[in-house]
């Protein structure tokens, strides 16, 4: 396993939120722990994040059965108030797939996720291009690096209107794009992941937590989650 925390360094606490219908929470916890964090699952009705939380992950799945719109109902859960407050104070928040959908519905990330252009559920490895390496979510990547990470979603077609997209491109908030010709869902401008304007909230459709162990093929997901663990550890050090 690449990127283990050096022995003796304090481990950052990175909880993973669970909603009814979340299904990637256990993989996320396992991946974060393998990469050197202390992780545990927290229930969506909790009103506070665990003491000492250094980053939060909103996992993939189908919260509330994807009823109405993906993420539309989960955004009203009590834990989201705590996540919003955490993000507002500069805390690191990562949303994966359904977690990304929840963050856009909550207004913490720009854009919206719509049904795939093909109307089919897609489940496969996709090549991605990392735009920047100077963020808490991509520090272990090189600028322009290609990562192979699986997607599995029915509603991954990211949308923003022209004005919004222009603004995001200008501010370099599109961190992750599907490689040319590999867009699996019809997302505008091949967007696979976007960063908020403050640089502390990131959402992506691909599943880095499914790509941290060589047994499952790619370990490129560790580049994203490992970056988060590094940044969380740094924020821990800064707080002491």
């Amino acid at each position, binding site marked *: 396993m690449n990127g283990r925390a050096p022995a003796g360094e304090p481990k950052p606490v990175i909880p993973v939120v669970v909603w009814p219908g979340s299904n990637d929470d256990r993989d996320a916890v396992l991946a974060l722990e393998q990469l050197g964090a202390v992780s545990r699952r927290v229930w969506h009705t909790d009103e506070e994040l665990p003491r000492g939380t250094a980053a939060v992950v909103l996992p993939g799945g189908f919260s509330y059965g994807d009823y*109405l*719109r993906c993420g*539309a*109902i989960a955004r*009203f859960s009590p834990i989201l108030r705590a996540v919003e407050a955490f993000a507002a104070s500069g805390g690191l928040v990562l949303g994966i797939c359904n977690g990304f959908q929840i963050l856009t*519905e909550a207004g913490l990330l720009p*854009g*919206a996720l*719509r*049904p*795939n*252009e*093909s*109307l089919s559920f897609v489940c496969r490895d996709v090549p991605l291009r990392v735009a920047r390496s100077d963020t808490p979510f991509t520090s272990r990547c090189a600028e322009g690096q290609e990562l192979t990470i699986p997607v599995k979603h029915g509603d991954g*077609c990211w*949308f*923003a*209107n022209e004005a*919004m997209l222009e603004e995001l491109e200008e501010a370099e908030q599109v961190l992750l794009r599907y490689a040319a010709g590999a867009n699996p869902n*019809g997302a505008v401008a091949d967007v696979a992941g976007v960063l908020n304007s403050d640089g502390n909230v990131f959402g992506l459709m691909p599943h880095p937590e499914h790509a941290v162990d060589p047994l499952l093929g790619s370990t490129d997901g560790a580049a994203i989650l490992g970056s988060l663990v590094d940044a969380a550890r740094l924020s821990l050090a800064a707080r002491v």
Partner: protein
Amino acid sequence: MLVRPKPGILDPQGQAVESSLRHLGFDVGEARVGRLVDVDVATEDRDEALAQLERMCEQLLTNPLIESYEIALEHV
């Protein structure tokens, strides 16, 4: 409350419906698929009902970036 994908938003469901209708021999233009939400509101006051339904649309039933809505009131 009638929720629709805004003009210009890709609507693959609408496209699938459109192509099926054409297959059946209907000479149709663009088809768009939205969502109908029926709600009983416990007030006799028309303006109050309308205000409540509008808030429901704004807060939960639509995502303003991609959807628009229309409200129709019916007295029961």
